[in-house]
């Protein structure tokens, strides 16, 4: 069995910017990852299976709705705590972090923010304990970066709406108990609603043969004349800003998560470079390898500072969507680059499941695409600084 030797790296003494409680939360999630996740994750990723037995533990460590108020079963924690939990989970595996991100930011967050009091009471406590797992349906087969053009739609039938269409690339879909779904009404206005498993005409076929996020289940949400009761619609929110505000929260978590994946790759490569002897010397003694390692910790340190500051702004409710885009884009690209460099330091060992690097590297190929692609986030920054949209 694989032992997780991870040791944290804090080059600029960022810990001094955290509270004792932040550090305790980090230690807790890290211990849980070392004990429960690391020993099994490689096997599940190889078999492309989601380790369902982790759901209870994820709930216990507060990974489901950390910033949702305790009245609804959440933990009432701040945004930095949320980020730290995502960082530590993704240090283990981006797929498991994805499950937690979707549950917290894409399912619990919209139900808490846009839901009626009845919807909050009905869904949030069970989502917080992991008794129910949710998914988030925005992307469609023909509409990815441009979700505003979605074709999934609802028709008002009096007591209920009739939902038709399909969503694709949906994390947690194959086993979700409910889905937060975005669809257009007769006037082309985007509405959000909760679709429950068991509703007639609702199915969730799994997407197979992924090379990435293999320990996270991905699938479709197919709606064939599904009767969704009106009380399942979010009462007030209209338009793209509904789903986009969920994505903001999830992207913020991903910015932290990517640092976790990068730290794990760096940590593994650093240890390996010090132990592996070639030409009678450790790899770490060669300038080329030192350059790689030194650049890795430099980039990680920059990302840590950027993301901590974003967390402070988020706590004060001042983080703009464009600032979040910058951090998501920067950190995921940074992690992907580090994963590739770290893999090379391990030579042939780097491609095996003995080490986590190749898994991180493949996972990050999804992370750089979902929640807004690398390109789209750049266009968001471009639009923010020039005032001109280059999307269309």
């Amino acid at each position: 069995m694989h032992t997780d030797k991870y040791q944290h790296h804090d080059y600029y003494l960022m810990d001094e910017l955290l509270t004792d409680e932040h550090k305790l939360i980090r230690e807790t999630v890290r211990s849980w990852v070392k004990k429960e996740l690391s020993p099994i994750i490689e096997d599940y990723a190889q078999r492309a299976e989601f380790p369902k037995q982790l759901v209870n533990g994820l709930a216990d460590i507060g990974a489901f709705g950390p910033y949702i108020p305790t009245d609804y079963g959440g933990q009432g924690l701040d945004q930095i705590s949320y980020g730290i939990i995502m960082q530590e989970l993704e240090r283990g595996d981006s797929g498991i972090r994805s499950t937690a991100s979707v549950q917290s930011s894409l399912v619990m967050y919209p139900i808490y923010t846009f839901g009626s009091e009845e919807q909050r009471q009905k869904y949030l406590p069970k989502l917080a304990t992991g008794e129910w797992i949710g998914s988030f349906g925005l992307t469609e087969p023909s509409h990815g970066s441009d979700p505003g053009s979605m074709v999934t739609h609802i028709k008002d039938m009096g007591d209920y709406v009739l939902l038709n269409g399909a969503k694709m690339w949906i994390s947690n879909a194959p086993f979700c108990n409910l889905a937060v779904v975005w669809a257009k009404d007769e006037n082309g206005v985007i509405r959000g609603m909760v679709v429950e498993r068991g509703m007639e005409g609702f199915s969730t076929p799994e997407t197979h043969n992924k090379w990435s996020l293999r320990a996270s289940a991905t699938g479709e949400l197919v709606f064939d004349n599904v009767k969704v009761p009106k009380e399942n619609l979010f009462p007030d929110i209209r338009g793209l800003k509904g789903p986009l505000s969920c994505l903001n929260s999830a992207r913020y978590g991903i910015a932290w998560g990517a640092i976790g994946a990068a730290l794990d790759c760096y940590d593994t490569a650093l240890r390996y470079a010090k132990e592996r002897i070639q030409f009678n010397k450790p790899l770490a003694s060669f300038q080329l390898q030192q350059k790689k390692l030194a650049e890795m910790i430099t980039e990680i340190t920059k990302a840590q500072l950027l993301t901590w500051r974003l967390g402070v702004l988020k706590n004060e409710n001042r983080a703009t969507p464009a600032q979040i885009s910058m951090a998501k884009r920067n950190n995921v690209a940074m992690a992907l680059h580090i994963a590739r460099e770290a893999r090379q330091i391990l030579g042939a060992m780097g491609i095996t499941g003995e080490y986590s690097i190749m898994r991180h590297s493949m996972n990050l190929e999804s992370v750089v695409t979902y929640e807004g692609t690398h390109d789209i986030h750049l266009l968001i920054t471009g639009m923010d600084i020039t005032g001109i949209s280059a999307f269309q």
Partner: protein
Amino acid sequence: MNILVCISKVPDTTSKIAFTDNNTRFDSSNVQYIVNPSDEWYALVRALELKEQLGTGKVSIITVGLAEDDAIIRKALAIGADDAIRINALPADSFFVASQIAEYAKTQDYKLVLTGKETIDYNNAEVGGMVAELLGWEFITPANKLDVESDKVRVESELGGEILVLEAPMPVVISAAKGMADQRIPNMRGIMAARTKPITVVEPFNVAPLVAIQKFEMPPAKAGVKLVDPENMEELVRLLHDEAKVI
């Protein structure tokens, strides 16, 4: 039954060890502190299990240290201790620490005082025995299993490859070692609950330490490993005889 668990902070094993003031003081800057593993994993967790089994009583933790130690106290509270006592003094030596704990324990009605077998910084393994002596109680170490039966404890102690099964009347002091319990990772509910659990700060009792540290030294660097081919037993014998001088 009320149980007192003694916890100590120790540097994380990955910390870089350095000294200051002419090698007379441990350099604690940038050192990450953790709860001493055998205090946390065995003593505290077993105390909580006993409380859960008996369905009554309270588990309190005590540490001798300054305000910065509240971080490790909160962790122990997050794992499940009911309340905490911090004796507000730098832990000067084992006798000083043991005296503080014993003086405090005298004023309360604990039936069981648990410590870890030893701390991973100085590895003295002294505090438990001293507390017992100062209180006039029985002392058992190392305890690898611990059960409570009415007014006595039953302990399994692994010593020199044998397992001793011991019984002692309570009150008693026991130093916990591997096997007594399994590490408990605090959950988020525990962390939240720890925010409001009480930490009582007690000013130190007047006791003079018995030990003064003259100087710290790093252990000599480990000599390299010599690999001997399994076919070449003569070479192994030669090395053991001529170089290691053990045969």
